[in-house]
């Protein structure tokens, strides 16, 4: 189903746009996250927020606006600038059944707390053999913003998704944001919730079902944003919007692209990706982060090895374990179905530059996606990097 993406109109943070009735209400991501937090906090008194500026400042990006007034300072905690400390405190509180939602002003700052996210949160259920679960959510903006420089622009999807014990979600639309955040808060495991700063102000149509306070999306299922038959394009977060624009352009040239919004980076919905690849026989993966060891590499590779392992299962004693540990993915299952090499679009393999034109080159653009899709379809387009 074609999703109509409105133009990037930055609505004022909390406009009462929901006044109008009938079918498609519009909601910005900011509103979606705010309402999701609000509803979850009112439904379960064990949910509380902590982070820098989440209270009196109404949230560094106004995501938590109004929540301090509504729930009080015991449930909306303004923390000092101590990521390692307050993340650990959140984890400790989660050990004892509270449900913290820890906000990082950007996920770049989560690097100061990454020890707690990985070692105290992700691994605890395993190390304690199931005695201690950690129902915590780490959320915040991830990836590049506009002109914020190298230390504020990294995408952490691949890093967190590499770690067993974590669930990593990355919403695109308001429906995703609401549904996935609610699912994350209700989930008994640690969830890393990667938002995108540039998407906060974008509005998307939402159905009445999405507005319901018990609306929830399943973790681990991707969404096919647009159906197609010639090439599959996987993306998450902001890149889904770019991919959809690219699909429009490709459609004019006769290439029908299927866009998959991953939604969940870990666990990756390999079933949907594989089914799509078997249908279209061509794959383009799009992400904003660094290319090496990224999400695209995972989708790409884990398909590659399975075909061989299926044949060598008897001779490869290691394979049993590999089968247990490694998921089937495109090449694992669908190598034989691919008619072209998988194209991987990712950010440039450099720290994010500051200059606007360089920054544009360091992040995938719509033209890059179009070009890659055409390459996958064997239209004659050179591999040269953007000029």
């Amino acid at each position, binding site marked *: 189903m074609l999703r109509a993406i409105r133009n990037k109109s930055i609505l004022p943070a909390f406009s009462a746009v929901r006044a109008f009735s009938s079918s498609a209400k519009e909601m910005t991501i900011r509103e979606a996250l705010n309402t999701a937090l609000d509803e979850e906090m009112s439904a379960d*008194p*064990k949910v*509380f927020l902590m982070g820098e500026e989440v209270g009196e400042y109404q949230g560094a990006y106004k995501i938590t606006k109004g929540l301090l007034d509504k729930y*009080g300072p*015991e*449930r909306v905690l303004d*923390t*000092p600038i*101590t990521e*390692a*400390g*307050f993340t*650990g*405190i*959140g*984890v*400790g*509180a989660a*050990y*004892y059944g*509270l449900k913290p939602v820890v906000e990082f002003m950007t996920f770049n700052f989560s690097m100061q707390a990454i*020890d*707690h996210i990985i*070692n*105290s949160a992700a691994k*605890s*259920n*395993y*190390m*304690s*053999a*199931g*005695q*201690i*679960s950690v*129902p915590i959510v780490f959320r915040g903006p991830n990836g590049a913003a506009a002109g914020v420089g190298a230390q504020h622009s990294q995408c952490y999807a691949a890093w967190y998704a590499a770690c*067993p*014990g974590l*669930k990593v979600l990355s919403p695109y639309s308001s429906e995703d944001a609401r549904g996935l955040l609610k699912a994350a808060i209700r*989930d*008994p*495991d640690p969830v890393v919730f990667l938002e995108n700063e540039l998407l906060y102000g974008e509005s998307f149509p939402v159905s009445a079902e999405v507005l319901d306070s018990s609306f929830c999306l*399943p*973790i*681990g*299922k991707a969404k096919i944003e647009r159906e197609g038959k010639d090439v599959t394009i996987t993306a998450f977060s902001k890149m889904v919007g770019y991919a959809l624009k690219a699909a429009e352009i490709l459609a004019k040239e006769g290439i029908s692209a299927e866009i998959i919004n991953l939604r*969940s980076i*870990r*666990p*990756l*919905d*390999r*079933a*949907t990706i*594989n089914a799509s690849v078997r249908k279209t026989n061509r794959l383009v993966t799009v992400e904003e982060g660094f290319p090496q060891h990224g999400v695209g590499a995972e989708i790409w590779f884990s398909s590659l090895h399975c075909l061989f392992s299926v044949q060598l299962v008897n001779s490869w004693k290691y394979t049993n374990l590999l089968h*247990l*540990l490694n*998921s*089937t993915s495109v090449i694992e*299952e669908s190598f034989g179905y691919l008619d072209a090499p998988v194209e991987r679009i990712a950010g440039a393999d450099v720290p994010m530059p500051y200059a606007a034109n360089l920054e544009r080159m360091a992040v995938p653009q719509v033209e890059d996606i179009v070009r890659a899709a055409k390459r996958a379809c064997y239209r004659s387009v050179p591999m040269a990097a953007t000029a």
Partner: protein
Amino acid sequence: MSFSATNFAQPRPVPVEVRSNEKPLSSDSFRFRGPPSFLGSPHSLRFNPIPPFKLAIPHSQRSNASAVTHIANGKMVKSSANLLITKEEGLELYEDMILGRYFEDMCAQMYYRGKMFGFVHLYNGQEAVSTGFIKLLKKEDTVVSTYRDHVHALSKGVSARAVMSELFGKATGCCRGQGGSMHMFSKEHNVIGGFAFIGEGIPVATGAAFPSKYRREVLKEAGADQVTLAFFGDGTCNNGQFYECLNMAALWKLPIIFVVENNLWAIGMSHLRATSDPEIWKKGPAFGMPGVHVDGMDVLKVREVAKEVIERARRGDGPTLVECETYRFRGHSLADPDELRDPAEKARYAARDPISALKKYLFENKLASEQELKSIDKKIDEVLDDAVEYSDESPLPRRSQLLENVFADPKGFGIGPDGKYRCEDPKFTQGTAHV
């Protein structure tokens, strides 16, 4: 440096009740002899000899600290009428320390026989801290520790069998063999680790203290007064997370006690070489909480302090930093050749063995006879032999256990090729399903 005059802003009535009325376990700890015995090093230090019990109160808290200050006054005066502990308590303390000591010795034996592997960090010599503090806790109170956590788990009530099997890596261990020496977890006994990274346990402990307050204030559960103890070492006190948590715990008045087991050495790094101001207890007041220094080789002194600070936390008066000067008789771990520590220093501390000190106290105050203590020793020997036998005979974890417990919600493994959640496949935990 005398603590009495300088630390208190307001004039304080001299406490009439001489609280510190027990006979000192070791008269050495009172006398200033040559180079200060604090920190054990023969190098002379700039500060004065330390009375057995030091207390620092931050400006803001002087008025609240009355419960703790009166202990600070004074030389312990012998009074035969009022002993610090009853016979039952004495025997309980003795048994706990013996359990800790014998257990760790057994670990060393098992390690050298190849039954235990990986990292093993032993607690010999520090038993007074664990016993002194943990034996005062209720079952709902929490203990968070570091990699040197066997004895903390034992003192809190985890059975020797469970801990030993965990060390052997068997399925009957407290974490089914998935944690290991450094990751002892027991939900039942509220031991939540076992953290390998130093400093990592401190924020988690602060977080574990947070729900007590949250339950009381937000969820309105009266009587939610659980207290948390965080144990960590001198090396950790230079780590950023420690300070972050001192700040937040004092800011939010969390019911937590930060117990520093200052054994003067972080593997081979002497505390004096690593720290600009080695007196860790002084760092408490900088963050608005009392800082207490106590002789950690003396279980009764530790217990005295522990009573006060745990009471303080339970009342809701906030956190405390307690520095226990102690010593580990063995190396940092069983792989540590322990070449850097001066044998004279080791001998000095060996003479202050907390178990011998308690024994002496019990005899001199006629609280227990030789026979009773020997029978406790024997009982613990049997407990340990049983634990080893049990662990030997326990099975290794099943292959299918590899994938278990990664997530509390098993759907975390995502969707299988058939479009259904992998966890719904009955073969998922039998080791035969494709994951």
